């Protein structure tokens, strides 16, 4: 078994060039190494100018999303062994503007996330003296899957609709809205409906399903979106048939 593997890493230095280029680095090959280990080796020993993001290196912070051999992946969870003998092509996450090398700007998502109010919305908060909100395991099961999102943005990189139209609100934002809509403690479904039912909201989604395929946490954003389409559509019908209903 070879003890070296080549990484073809995309470089983009805005102060020097206007296009991305590829640079090859040969890193040690260990069976248990992930792509992130390879990048860290490059930064530590071969080329300190390489820029990329990472943090927890264990698949929970969502920082290290990149495109590995054309697929959106968490580089801390992608083993070099799966690509042996290589080379392994590492590029920045698709569908986001590249700031430098492998670093992309995710400000668009951050802004969209706030618009779906990803927190418990209540008309009146229970006072502390009234104790905790009680929730059965079954009630938590309703939304738990969608709470697993780590905001890694792999779903946005895989979504062609987002790639074609950056106004599209995108899979993770809708899944996170659902996490709160389906939480029994929350009373904010109507407010979120206003945002999500706009044209750039859920209706742009054509159920390609790639977001679910690439999600490292099995959140199934595609399923969340389709479920929400039905909810929103029925709300729409209800409001047309009963315009006097409580708003």
């Amino acid at each position, binding site marked *: 078994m070879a003890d070296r593997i080549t990484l073809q890493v995309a470089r983009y230095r805005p102060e020097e060039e206007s296009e991305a280029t590829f640079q090859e680095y040969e890193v040690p090959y260990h069976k248990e190494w992930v792509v992130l280990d390879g990048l860290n080796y490059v930064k530590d020993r071969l080329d300190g100018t390489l820029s990329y993001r990472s943090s927890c290196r264990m698949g929970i912070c969502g920082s290290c999303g990149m495109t590995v051999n054309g697929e959106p992946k968490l580089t801390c969870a992608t083993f070099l062994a799966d690509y042996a003998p290589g080379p392994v092509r590492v590029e920045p996450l698709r569908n986001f503007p590249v700031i430098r090398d492998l670093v992309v700007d995710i400000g668009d998502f951050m802004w969209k996330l706030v618009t779906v109010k990803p927190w418990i919305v209540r008309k009146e908060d229970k006072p502390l003296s009234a104790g905790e909100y009680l929730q059965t395991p079954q009630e938590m099961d309703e939304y738990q899957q969608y709470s697993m999102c780590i905001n890694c943005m792999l779903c946005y990189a895989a979504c062609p609709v987002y790639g074609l139209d950056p106004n599209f609100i995108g899979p993770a934002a809708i899944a996170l809205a659902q996490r709160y809509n389906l939480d029994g403690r929350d009373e904010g479904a109507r407010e979120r409906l206003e945002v999500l039912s*706009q044209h750039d909201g859920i209706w742009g989604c054509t159920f390609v399903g790639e977001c679910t395929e690439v999600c490292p946490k099995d959140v199934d954003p595609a399923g969340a979106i389709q479920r929400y389409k039905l909810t*929103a559509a029925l709300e*729409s019908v209800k409001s047309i048939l009963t315009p006097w209903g409580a708003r």
Partner: protein
Amino acid sequence: MAKRPIEPLLWLLFSAGGVLAALLIPSLLFLFGLAFPLGWFSPPSHEHLLALLRHPLTRVVLFLLCMLSLFHWAHRFRYTLYDGLQIKHMSDLINLLCYGGAIVGSVMAGYLLWQVP
């Protein structure tokens, strides 16, 4: 309320059309498109088919099948044009052709089914 309240309704029509098309079209197309022309089964006699078509239930079901399938096509094809050919800026023309086409087709379906002697 939503800025474009028509969108959820179009989606509902698309979904209903998708379900009906999936359930009914394969068998109908297999029989009338393959089996009867190729002689695998003998086609129904004219009187039998006419008797079937005359029945109000058949007319209603077939009308729904046609109308919803056309709206299913219209919605899906519209988004295919948006995303596949990236011509979203021509959305007014696309919407006119797709949904307009579906409306025209539905009217024709209604007319033809109504006119069955």
